[in-house]
């Protein structure tokens, strides 16, 4: 993009601006709304349980996929950029899961030791 840093763009008053292509954007918006509505349905219709929590987590990840893939355009970037972002993120998800699981266990052990 460095080549564009000089004023090489000539403003043409009669230039025709192409029509907006917004169909895909509104489609993703509707998908996000529907998933949020489903989350609320589960929050009110299903009693609290670990199964319900997993449903919430999976639906959240689906929403994240659409926001990152479509809104942030990552799905349409080059392969190397996709992996540069995806690999550390997968590591992060594992890290959070591992820390919460192990931390809860170690917390319990220390708590019971001093009881």
């Amino acid at each position, binding site marked *: *993009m460095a080549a564009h840093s000089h004023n090489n763009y000539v403003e043409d008053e009669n230039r025709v601006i192409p029509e907006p292509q917004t169909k895909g*954007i509104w489609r993703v918006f509707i998908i996000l709304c529907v998933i949020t509505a489903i989350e*609320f349905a589960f929050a009110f219709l299903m009693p609290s349980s670990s199964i319900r929590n997993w449903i919430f987590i999976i639906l959240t990840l689906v*929403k994240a996929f659409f926001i990152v893939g479509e*809104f942030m355009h990552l799905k349409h970037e080059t392969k190397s950029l996709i992996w540069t972002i995806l690999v550390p993120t997968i590591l*992060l998800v594992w890290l959070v899961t591992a820390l919460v699981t192990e*931390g809860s266990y170690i917390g319990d052990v220390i708590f019971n030791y001093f009881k």
Partner: protein
Amino acid sequence: MKASYGKLMMWIFLLSDAFTFGAFLTAYGLVRHRHQVYTGAADDFTFSTAYWPIPEKVFNAFPGFHGVDLPLAFVALMTMILILSSVTMVLAVEAGHRMDKNDVQKWLLWTILFGSMFIGCQAWEWSHFITGSEHGMKLPDGSTFHGANLAINEYGPVLFADLFFFITGFHGTHVFSGIVLLITMFISTVNGVFQRRGHYEMVEKVGLYWHFVDLVWVFVFTFFYLV
């Protein structure tokens, strides 16, 4: 890598930011695990420092509906506003690809408006959380405490309010920074900076940041209000 330096660096920054929020989520998970779960019927639920509160019982107020039990209604509205601001942001980026200055201005303004609405909603939510309910909580010395601060709160364990302040506060700070960036983008667009430069990539980079803020809210919403 066929991605410009600026966009690549924005992605790397967002990755590092994701690690920060990952640390917050880890802390939240651990603290929540250390506290008792409320096991009785949901209708009989009362606030107590003995167990973690049910989010629907804490966040059930709506501006203008004093005393009406509307569980999670306000946070639903906030979520919708933020998703909508994300959509207007993509529309601004899309207009930038077409070099349509007027459309970029229009959609940036909508994004600034929705972002500011979200911040306003959060300010109301915070002030309601801090003010508390009318009945409050009876303290051992006989006095009554209303609302919440970092040391005591009427909703549940101390750490419940602490995590609420830190996590939603950190997210709110991100939204605020995003609005500042969006306003600078709007001013540059109006002045024709990007039009002369020949591309609207700067708007795209700020767009990446803005979507990330929306993404974080999706997670905060799940783990703080739903689970």
